[in-house]
């Protein structure tokens, strides 16, 4: 559900949570990004930074330069301008630049398998993740899981929890997969693992604890602390909210080849930076495929 008006809740005296709705959907998330873009463009004196998330925006402000009430009032004005979702002919964000990453992925790789087996030594009742995903989504086999999961572009809705960890929403609703999270979570996950939890996919930027179901791995780094590779020129974290990702299935020999290039420092990330994402055309496409 989208709120008619954003809800503003204080988080102490220096932060405000601006809640635009309470569902996980592309339409709502795009409004979050549009509002964040508008707030940034307005260069409001005293607003320090923004953390856009799935259905809300965290605003960090300097209370000695702008009050809570004035911050709320400025953002409310901007949200009225950006609240259309492009679908209803409203004035909302129509187009935004959006980079696209082609992420090479080895599905059902040996390293995530080993990680799941390690967990199952302590929790033997856990179904292996690929099988759990097939069962939870009515898919007949692993080949179907790979076909569905890689058959859509994903929208980078947010980053968070760990630096560089992205939350990905499938842009084709027919490819929406769902899965419960690990309970309790795993103590470790191989760097580059592809995970799925709730309705969100992610790429683990480093070897970290985690709770998503895991079933694939990419040799393409999304985190480079020392910023060695060209793609990390501006930040140790590769993706930003508003980017898109496409998973490209590869075989083991290509995985090893890419990994060697990464080690040598010669790897160039397959990234496209000349496209804009058109929201009205996205909605028109959804209608065409009968998904709206």
């Amino acid at each position, binding site marked *: 559900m989208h709120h008619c008006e954003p809800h503003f809740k204080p988080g102490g005296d220096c932060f405000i*949570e601006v809640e635009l709705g309470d569902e996980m959907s592309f339409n709502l998330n795009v409004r979050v990004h549009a509002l964040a873009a508008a707030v940034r463009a307005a260069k409001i004196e005293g607003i320090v930074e923004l*953390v*856009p998330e799935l259905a809300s925006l965290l605003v960090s402000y300097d209370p000695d330069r702008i009050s809570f009430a004035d911050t709320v009032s400025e953002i409310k004005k901007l949200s009225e301008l950006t609240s259309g979702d492009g679908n209803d002919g409203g004035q909302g964000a129509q187009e935004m630049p959006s980079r696209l990453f082609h992420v090479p992925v080895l599905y059902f790789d040996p390293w995530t398998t080993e990680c799941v087996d390690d967990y199952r030594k302590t929790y033997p009742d856990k179904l292996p993740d690929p099988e759990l995903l097939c069962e939870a989504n009515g898919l007949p086999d692993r080949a179907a899981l790979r076909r569905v999961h890689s058959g859509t572009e994903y929208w980078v809705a947010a980053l968070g929890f760990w630096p560089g960890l992205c939350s990905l929403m499938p842009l084709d609703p027919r490819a929406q997969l769902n899965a419960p999270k690990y309970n309790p979570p795993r103590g470790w996950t191989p760097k580059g693992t592809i995970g799925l939890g709730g309705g969100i996919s992610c790429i683990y930027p480093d070897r970290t604890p985690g709770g998503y179901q895991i079933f694939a791995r990419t040799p393409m780094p999304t985190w480079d602390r020392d910023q060695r590779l060209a793609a990390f020129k501006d930040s140790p974290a590769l993706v930003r909210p508003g980017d898109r990702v496409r998973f490209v299935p590869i075989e083991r020999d290509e995985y090893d080849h890419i990994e060697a290039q990464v080690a040598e420092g010669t790897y160039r990330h397959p990234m496209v930076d000349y496209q804009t994402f058109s929201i009205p055309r996205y909605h028109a496409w959804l209608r065409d495929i009968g998904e709206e």
Partner: protein
Amino acid sequence: MLEILKPGLETTVQELPGRIGHWEQGFPPSGPADPWSFRLANLLVGNDRDTAALEWQFVGPALRFHRDCTIALTGADMAVKLDDTPVPLWQTLRVRTGQVLTCGAARTGARGYIAIAGGVQTPAVLGSRATFHMAGIGGGSGGALKNGERLPLGEAASSRGLLQVAPAARPPIDLKDRTRHEEQAIAAMLGPNDSWLHSDAIEMFFSSEWTVQARSNRTGLRLTGPDFTFSERAYSKRPEHGRDPSNILDHGYPLGGISIAGQTAIILIHDAPSAGGFIIPFTVPRCDLWRLGQARPNEKLRFRQVTMNDASAARRRLDELCSHQSLVDLARWIA
């Protein structure tokens, strides 16, 4: 130049306002967990109060100075020596080339600061010298200081003489120094997700004792205490929020936010995750973040509810205390 002879438990370079502008990629602000003590240390050595300095945790470092320096130590009380001579905290100290500063362990509180005139000049990463140890960001070699590491120092501004922080201007880190009512319990404001708790749970939170768990660190202060009860809002929600009543759609985590993960209260401090899927019914305002930075394992904490106005007034008072008006010129007292 500063040489690290022993790093202590986890000592890092920190500065204010911390790392700004990269939170949406998952980089927290970091910075000193007790900004009150941090700022006074810098003022004692004639630095701008936000200059990069060292933060130590529970056990301080041993350092050798490779040039004459003016330094100051503040924060948690501990025994510290310059070569073989004990030296006091909260006061400007003069150090000669080759001298060794040896720090002990915190007797009360958790963290302390070592400021050097001219500041610590490690390279800025993503615009800041503040260290985010977990991801190896900031510091001389990426993360907490290591044995044998050498840190560059900046040029000192002209000396301001021998100064001391007036006792009344120091944070009451030791329990016995908390004589004023507002110093007993930690300030907490309702929000952003207070509507997800049952009103009984809100009352329970402000009237209970919360014990700091030993595994707390800069990514979060974990508390042990009574169980929470939740409101209807936490139960009738769309499935994508998650099944547990404390689950919410992933949202940004404010600094000082008190999250409830299942039944565990975890206070988000300077290196906490930028976002997550647990509710935050209360948030500690900026004026009392220092209390979280000085919380000791097994310490029993209490919280008191404050309004935005209370928090603003306290923030402004603290800002005034972190200024030259809190410093006393020692030279006046020398006969």
